[in-house]
């Protein structure tokens, strides 16, 4: 089923939950709503579910406007962060509840519950109560309940946030795999950009009720359109700082107290009109070089903190009042206070207008 949101808005008095959200979701597509808490992603999801009534705009399922359709008639399945299992019902009753409400025949119901439970690997737990299950098992029950009625749209509201880190990884790939196999159009709300990046076909980044971007994950990553997206997508986050832009012949120099580097002409020229720009550079696009005394190349800073992450070391390098995060090879021995030089990968440098916060490179 295709889903289309046109200028969708939700207001309570003068509080705006969602502001003119427009996007379309193709049939079978997996879309993530990504943003910090309070950004309007759950509000939008609940409007799609039919729990909140939109203040303005429309929601279309295929070509039908469903603004006035109650949730029970929308044929959607939903999975919650809190699992939202009915505590007074057994697993069997929980999964079978949507079918019971549809008045399915008992035999068919039993069969479908068993099939879904087996698919989720909880077939042996059908007679337990939710309180007797672990968090992961409860989430599987919730998923089974959402799937049993064969919905045309699946809604996930931060379903993995209550699980421990390892289980989150497993469930992440399971949900992704399941969605691919069943081909059900899905909306997945999360504040975890790793989840959004790994699972979604397209990500809708939201901030303060507004849709900031709607693009496939790698495009968001490679070509962030605003400083917010640049800072939010990617882990560890992109370094963002303001510099003075100087032009010396064909060379574009970015300067800041204690820091100076050259921008490649094809990128620098896009910012030529600005005296001051915001530079964005990801920690993995900076190379850390031991300080060679007397060298004029690059910029000189000192190691402030080293966080070993296993595969890499995350190094906090200080230039006066500016802290830059750099991913460095852990074999490189670094002590706090060591002088270091940084080399930026110029082709990865992002440039933003400090006033509008829009990218100077991508529109």
């Amino acid at each position, binding site marked *: 089923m295709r889903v289309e949101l046109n200028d969708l808005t939700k207001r309570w008095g003068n509080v705006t939950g969602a502001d003119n959200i427009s996007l379309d979701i193709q049939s079978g597509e997996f879309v993530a709503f990504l943003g910090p808490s309070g950004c309007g992603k759950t509000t939008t999801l609940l409007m799609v579910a039919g729990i909140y009534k939109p203040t303005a705009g429309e929601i279309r399922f295929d070509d039908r406007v469903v603004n006035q359709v109650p949730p029970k008639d*929308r044929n959607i399945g939903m999975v919650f962060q809190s699992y*939202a299992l009915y505590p*007074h019902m057994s697993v069997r009753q929980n999964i079978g509840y949507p079918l019971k409400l549809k008045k399915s025949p008992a035999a068919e119901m039993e069969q479908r519950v068993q099939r879904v439970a087996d698919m989720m690997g909880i077939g042996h737990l059908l007679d337990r109560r939710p309180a007797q299950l672990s968090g992961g098992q409860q989430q599987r029950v919730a998923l089974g309940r959402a799937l049993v009625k064969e919905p045309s749209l699946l809604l996930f509201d931060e379903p993995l946030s209550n699980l421990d880190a390892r289980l989150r990884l497993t469930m992440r790939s399971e949900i992704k795999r399941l969605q691919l196999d069943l081909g059900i159009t899905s909306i997945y709300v999360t504040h975890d950009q790793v989840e959004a990046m790994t699972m979604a076909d397209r990500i809708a980044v939201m901030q303060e009720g507004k849709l900031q971007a709607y693009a496939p994950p790698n495009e968001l990553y490679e070509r962030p359109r605003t400083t917010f997206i640049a800072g939010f997508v990617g882990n560890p986050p992109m370094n963002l700082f303001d510099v003075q832009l100087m032009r010396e012949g064909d060379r574009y120099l970015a300067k800041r107290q204690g820091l100076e580097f050259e921008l490649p002409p094809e990128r620098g020229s896009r910012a030529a009109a600005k005296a001051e720009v915001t530079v964005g550079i990801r920690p993995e696009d900076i190379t850390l070089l031991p300080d060679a005394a007397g060298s004029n190349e690059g910029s000189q800073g000192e190691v402030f903190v080293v966080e070993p992450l296993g595969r890499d070391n995350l190094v906090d390098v200080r230039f006066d009042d500016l802290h830059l995060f750099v991913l460095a090879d852990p074999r490189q021995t670094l002590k706090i206070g060591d002088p270091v030089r940084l080399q930026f990968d110029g082709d990865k440098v992002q440039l933003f207008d400090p006033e509008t916060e829009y990218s100077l490179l991508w529109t």
Partner: protein
Amino acid sequence: MVTNQTETAIQVPRAGRGRWLLLAAGLLLLGCIVLPWLRFVIIADQRVALSLTGQQAATIGAIETTDGGLLYRSSFWLFFAPLAGAVGLALGAINLLPGRSAPWHGLFAVLISVTASVAVWGAFAASQEIAQKQKVAVEAQLGLSVAFMALLLLLVGGLILLREASGQKPAFRAALDALNFMAPGSLLVIVFFFLPAIILFILSLTDLSSANFSEPWTYVGFDNYKRMFSDRFFPKILRNTFQYVILTLLFFNVGLALLLALLTAHVSRRVGFFFRLLWLLPRITPSVVYIVMWQRIAQQPPYGILNQILGLFGVENQPYWIPESPWVFVVLVNGFVGASFGMIIFTSAIEAIPADLIIAAKVDGAGNLALIRDITLPLLRWPLLFVVTYQTLSLLVSFEYILLLTNGGPGLFTTEVWALTAYKRALQTYFGSNQWAYGAAWGFVLVLIGAILSVTYLRVFRFNDLVQEPKIDVL
């Protein structure tokens, strides 16, 4: 870690302060026992010396027997008790000697033996007097009350003693800790429920009334109960009581309360709050004012509000409604007051249901009715149990609105319920003859009914299933 704690527990003499408290309690207890005993002995001697008449002796607390000679029949127990106390005292004294590891154990031995003997004395003295249909003497009553007090102290002291003695056995100590935790609550229940119930029962076995209250009580066995059960109106009162409780509970205290809670929980918060406040008004209105308002509503034309409204529709010449259909008004009047309690409990329970559950059910395909039937009501099981149980009991013993509205009438016993009968027999009679003992019999049976109903409710609702295992272990 655990070893450390155990060591600390042994090193710190926790009973340090408790010891003095217990000593004080012991002294107090001894005073309570010894002084009445001394008093009795002195009175006994004085009677001989002053040649008191039997009547005079009775007024100061001694007993007159048929032969006019012997003062006290339970002398065996009277002497046995101090004897047992003395033995305990001696045994305890050995333990109290310096150099003993735990002197307060000796103190406990003293206390326990003394209290036990006093309890035995009081109980036997009373039972012997009662069994022989003698007038219950003052000292027997005194003995009983001291015995209750002593039993209480015994309970507390015994618990503490057991706790001290069982320092090395964790499981046993955990069980004792549980009892200690419950002690404040249990004490309240004992003092304010069990003891009054027992006193009520004892009272109901006598003939105490305003006609003879200056005399010592006379034990009349179960006469009051026989009289009660053979009362011509007993079946009527019983039926009235059940009718009153069931109708009010079903339609108002639970039914209307649930409806109000569901309605006010599903409108905006402010409106819901306003309506709940409105429904609290009957509760906070003084009962006399409240009843006068109802009477004004039901009055004949042209005063009655109801009849004025009926008049607007052309229905004329209607009667004063309360004597016309007294039961409707008894239930209405009580129900409007009673609904607020359940409403508040249910509202908070409904608001405590996580929003996700409601959303999940809606998405699963539940309409409003299915939502209430499948999600809200099952999750209200515990508040429902609580309100049904609590309100059954409070309705069973309530009578003030009926007293004010119909006073059990119109006519004979039309709306008279059990509690009202008990009240009238004990405290309100036409000729000022308050039959306290007879009223106590009615009251005691009501207590029994209430107790049986509570246990039944807990069984039927499977209360134990609703209680979660404690999540905190006592170390």
